[in-house]
């Protein structure tokens, strides 16, 4: 397989000891198999996420993202910027669209970047990892390295918001996107196509500040997965993963439910199917252990 190079934007949550550390572990395992070479953008910074709006002004937040793009253009010329985190991708992509669309805005951004000795020319494109997998490689290629098809594994593909709206993956439907189900199938597992909370918002951004409200969303998302007979939920978004997994215990405490639904990343599925060990596939990074997936990984 010819190697493909990308300027990698891991994002804060993927860092060592951070809330999505195991996401990165699994992504690395997958990329190795697929000859995708990710080079981290030197000294990349936080995207500001969508939540920073009260503190950060419009331009400040654009500049924050423009810095990463400028760094990519400078150090990794010609490479697309790839983000694994949905929020990072959205923030970076929105900034790019805005800067490319408006000359004056780009001028302002560059005036600020200049202070840090940088410039963004509007070249570097912003992609999400799943876009790379689906658009650059294609499902067939993704299926090739599979050594342990995850047969019999019933999985609810939870797309959530930010990889889906407003940009979407491969121009897919906002209401019923298919890409995640296709990835699940590529790993040999069964995608539950009737899973009806696929694009429901988990309230992640407000998980800390409006716990009841966001946990109500999480409850819907998890219970619907149970209704469909899912073994686990799969998601492309660190924030979704954390919220939907982490707060199940709290919901149980408060409401006497017995939610215990594993929530894993598409990349953990693929890594396992590609024969990675539980550790390599990041399966050890869960509060609710995805036992069936771990079993598959341990199977020799």
């Amino acid at each position: 397989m010819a190697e493909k190079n990308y300027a990698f934007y891991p994002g804060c949550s993927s860092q060592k000891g951070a809330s999505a550390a195991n996401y990165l572990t699994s992504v690395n395992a997958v990329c190795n198999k697929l000859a995708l070479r990710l080079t981290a953008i030197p000294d990349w910074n936080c995207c500001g996420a969508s939540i920073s709006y009260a503190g950060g002004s419009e331009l400040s937040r654009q500049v924050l993202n423009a810095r990463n793009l400028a760094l990519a253009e400078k150090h990794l010329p010609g490479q697309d910027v790839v983000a694994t985190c949905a929020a990072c991708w959205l923030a970076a992509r929105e900034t790019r669209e805005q800067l490319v669309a408006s000359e004056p805005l780009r001028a302002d951004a560059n005036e600020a970047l200049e202070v840090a000795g940088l410039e963004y020319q509007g070249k570097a494109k912003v992609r999400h990892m799943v876009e790379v997998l689906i658009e650059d490689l294609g499902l067939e290629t993704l299926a090739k390295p599979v050594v342990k098809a995850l047969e019999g594994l019933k999985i609810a593909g939870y797309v959530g918001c930010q990889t889906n709206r407003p940009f979407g993956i491969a121009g897919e439907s906002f209401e019923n996107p298919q890409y995640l189900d296709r990835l699940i199938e590529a790993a040999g597992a069964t995608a539950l196509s009737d899973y009806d909370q696929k694009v429901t918002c988990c309230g992640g951004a407000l998980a800390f500040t409006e716990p009841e409200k966001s946990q109500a969303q999480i409850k819907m998302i998890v219970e619907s997965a149970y209704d469909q007979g899912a073994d686990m939920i799969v998601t492309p978004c660190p924030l979704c993963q954390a919220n939907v997994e982490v707060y199940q215990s709290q919901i149980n405490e408060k409401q006497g439910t017995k939610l215990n639904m594993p929530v894993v990343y598409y990349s953990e599925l693929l890594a396992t199917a590609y024969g990675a060990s539980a550790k390599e596939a990041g399966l050890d990074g869960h509060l609710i252990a995805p036992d069936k997936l771990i079993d598959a990984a341990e199977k020799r």
Partner: protein
Amino acid sequence: MNAIATNQTLLVIGGGISGMSAALEAAECGAEVVLVERNASLGGRTAQIYRYFPKLCHPLCGLEINLRRLRANPRVRVLTLAEVTEVSGRRGNYRVQVKLAPRYVNERCTACGECAKVVTRTIPNPYNQGLDTIKAAYLPHALAHPQRYVLDASLLGSPEAEAARAACPVGAIDLQMGVETIELSVGSIIWATGWKPYDAVKIQPYGYGRYLDVVTSVEFERLADPRGPTRGRILRPSNGEPATNIAFIQCAGSRDENHLRHCSRVCCMVSLKQTQYLREAAPEGAQATVYYIDIRAIDRFENFYQQVRADARVKFLKSKVARIVHNAQSGQLVLHGVDTEGYHRYAREHDLVVLAVGMEPETNGLDLPEDLIRDASGFIEGSSDGGQFGAGGAAAPLDVNRAVQSATAAALRALQVTRAAARAEELKG
């Protein structure tokens, strides 16, 4: 064929209500007219409408009158299964390429139906929006003109095609027919190519194509029509049960920059009309709810709106429905949104949802002569050389009444062109 047309001939493209009106009005002024229709019979979309607003009368009544006018008028030449593929020249002297698709049935056909008796293969019935099937040898509809059967191409090469040919007592079936192209020279052209319903699949939050019980207003016309797939009973496609709680969603595609940027004008009246179908086609106590942004019941149609407002069966909600969810338990469709008059949230269940889909020009997606002037939505104004004109639904989203006006006006403008061409000839000769 070329002989029939001269630069004083008027070409009308489209045999729906607008095209027929333009052709007949011009011919009844003494003009020679060629009327070109892409389908196998005349009548267009109005022939598939059950009732007209606001009179709740039947489109076929007007169609019958127009067909009578047509039969009585030798000046109109009708070409069916015919498509204009190219227009060259300029006002007063156009050359037009017309592609004639094979019908596999010639003019000897007496519409006796013997061919259909021996054919078993069926095809989706175009007249009923494909909601039911029809024999692959068929008469397009009761008032089809020409009153002649059509053999669907899917039959070709099958033993059934042979059987049909053998069954025809008058030797009207000709399996050797092929595509034919003819050239016409005409003085002016009226584009009465009509409209098509916006593709409801693209309106994702409403789940058309995902939920069986979400239908378009165009399909609903067929459901209410005794000649339709359900014989005039409004049944839920999901389970064939009578619908008793129907939602009508306005601006399905219209007034929406994600879809059609224009207002399609008729949809409000169409839904108001369709709520009245419940009286005859739905069980006692059936309810309807109209979800709207602005009700556009213009001029005297306001009466009709007030009548429907007074109808206890019908509820109105000023709200653009946000999304439709299928309730697996109840099998019902749940509409989510807010009543904007004071912000009242709702999640209302319905057993059938009718999308009042917008109108877009039938010609969108086809390549048309460059010098046709079209607006942002593709509606045809006319040609820059002033010899071609849009009429009816091709020129703007119009109700029938206004479409016929538009067609009549277009006929006069076209006549002015051909008469001018005639005068020019006289001067020359």
